[in-house]
């Protein structure tokens, strides 16, 4: 009985751990590289303006649509 349990835990069965660790590290490194890239591109230099700008985009579209409908009715 005891032997049976031990056999369930042989390292061959646990080889998946190698794989999992490599995969998780690989993913972490990908995100880390993305972070470095975004810093380098200047994404964090201006933390405020984009938060306002994103609200304007809707504003724009609305305006343009208004205009378009105006033209149609004319």
């Amino acid at each position, binding site marked *: 009985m005891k032997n049976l349990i031990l056999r369930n835990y042989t*390292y061959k069965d646990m080889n998946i751990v*190698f794989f999992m660790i490599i995969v998780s590290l690989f993913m*972490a490194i990908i995100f*880390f590289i993305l972070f470095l890239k975004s810093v*380098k591109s200047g994404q964090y230099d*201006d933390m405020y303006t984009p938060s306002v700008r994103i609200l304007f985009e809707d*504003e724009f579209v609305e305006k343009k649509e208004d205009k378009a409908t105006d033209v149609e009715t004319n």
Partner: protein
Amino acid sequence: MPDCFHCGAKCDSKPVIFDSKPFCCNGCKTVYEILNENDLSCYYDFEQAPGAIPEEIKSKYAYLDAEKIVEKLYDFVDEETSVITFYIPHIHCSSCIWVLENLHRLNDAIVSGIVNFPKKEIRITFNNTKISLRQVVELLSSIGYEPYISLEDTAKAKRTVDRTLIYKLGVAGFAFGNIMLLSFPEYFQTNEFWLEHYKPLFRVLIFIMALPVVFYSASEYFISAYKGLKHKILNIDVPIALGVSVLFIRSAIEIIFNFGQGYFDSLTGFVFFLLLGKIFQQQTYSFLSFERDYKSYFPIAVTKINKDQTEHTISIYDIKKGDRLLIRNEELIPVDGILINGNAQIDYSFVTGESLPVSKKSGDKLFAGGKQLAGAIEMEVLQTVSQSYLTQLWSNDIFTKKQTNTIKTLTDSISKRFTIIVLLIAFFAGVFWYFNDASMVANVVTAVLIVACPCALALSAPFALGNMLRIFGKHKLYLKNADVIENLSNVDTVIFDKTGTLTTNKTTIFYEGEALSTDEKQWIRNVLRESNHPLSRMLYGYLETSEKIKVDNFKEIFGKGIQGEVNKNKIKLGSEDFVKGNKSDTLQTAIFININNRYKGKFIFENTYRKNSMAIFQELKEYKLGVLSGDNEGEKEYLKELLPQETILAFNQKPSDKLSYIKQLQESNQNVLMLGDGLNDAGALAQSNVGIAVSENTNVFSPASDGIIDAGSFTWLPDFLKLTKSTLKIIKISFVLSFLYNFIGMFFAVTGNLSPIVAAILMPISSISVVIFVTIATNFVAKRIRFA
């Protein structure tokens, strides 16, 4: 009275009504019209009254047509596209961002505008075949967003943003997180069957990840420690570097020879927290500049009059002795020279501290830095820019001396003793174990050095100062860096400039003499309307609006006064000897009034002192106080009465006098805080231990200083000073706290029981608790003084 729909200012009794909306002036109305015509009226939806009154421009930007002069302003130019970045002080709300990023709707030739709000900058890309730089600037000005272009802009090196600290923090954070995960299994399950098998993999990965943290992220601590040791200073970076290297070497040996798992998680966490503290301390105000000199106040170019009377634009640096220059209304005199012709009314307040404009007649000497207030003048150059009276101040040693960190900070002075004590403990512990169990010596000595890592110690000052810096910033005292707080707490002498610092830039007018009837006031106002003299304009604005009456026989006698007839009544206004025929010795600035050959009285012009500025003097009683003024002694008696008796008063101080005055005080071992506002204070601000510039509008020019205080927060000065002292007290308390942790750790270390898990628990707990303590404590003291 309604508020202006565009700029929000109170309108006159007769607002300009357009589109059934009130406007305070035609300028504001025009901007509204422009925006409305181009479908940009959303501008007014985001924010109430977001605009600014556009400045009169006319030929102000003519120099921008001279390609040679402006080529340095561009970020990028090719045959079709130009990219340029402007600093626009008026950028202040979301409406501003919106309208500036929609510039292409106003003019097709503009490709795009991208606003950086914190920096108040816009980067404009435009088609240079369709629109000139001058037109772009004029377009911006016409909608109230006038860019601030100064001589400094041509000198700027291409700005590079330093992001190394963020990279280092990123590397340390990445490694810390992953190493912690990989270290956990060994903490919880020792001797587990399968763990034994995978341990080598975990350890190799941990080791590889720790390498960049030690050799890249922590590199500056090694460099700083090395520099410190070279100068025989034991700064805080010495024990840090020592701790990091001992941690690394011992852990590396443990892993390589398979003794244990090492302390890599503590090591990376330690570096990560330290860098985090560094970033927190680095509060930057990107819209402010603490390094300005006269260059950011002076224009780029000026109009030169050639021999054949043609005009052309030349760069300020190309001005030569003997050149003739044309200075237009509101323009700055860039060099010393002689007035040739024109009505010169020069505002020197920023340069000399004289509060009221000065009249000059042809042949008089003009000094660089003055602003012409009444129409165009011609002048002949006597000195080049660098040799002018004002700019020579910058050749003083104080401006050329390289900033060296001679000031010993509190942390450094403590860490000196700390390092020595730690080394002693390590030594004695080693000796003790050598006689008891020699195999334990290396273990114990390294453990002591590891535990001594002054993590909490090194974090308490950055977080306390960084947090205080933010609290100050919220209350509009912007300090250059965290060291200024420590310097401020050591100040024992406070020196004020008068004009612009104690006084506002506004002038109050009051009348002294025989009461004037409403009719008489009307007559005076009508005569004043004909005059361009700055004092006349001021008094004209002060007197109540009246109907227009024709003035006959108007005459302006230069440097003396004006006269004219209204409804057959002879009015004479001006200086004392012009109106009364005799001259007394008063230094008051006044317009004397004579109606129908009878002396009536005088309108006196006086500086308004800032609200509560006298109360500040009372509150600062424990400091030595002084007032240095470039103005005349006219208000000496008045000030003497108001200020505490011991206050030093000095008048007629030239910029260089102020500097040497501060130097004198320092030579008698005083720590001086100087508050000033103008270019004339620049020397004194640089010389003093802490120089703070007072600014009505932090967006416009302020001289180089350690800090900038908004004029509105000026009355809080005593509170700010008190807070700097409490901050230092808090840091000292937190030092005691962190020593306590070191003491506990030391107990584990000398007994030889410092396992990796103890270090891994102790290190973050001590750091985080110290950080929490200083943050709460600084907020608490700030709150107690009605702050935060």
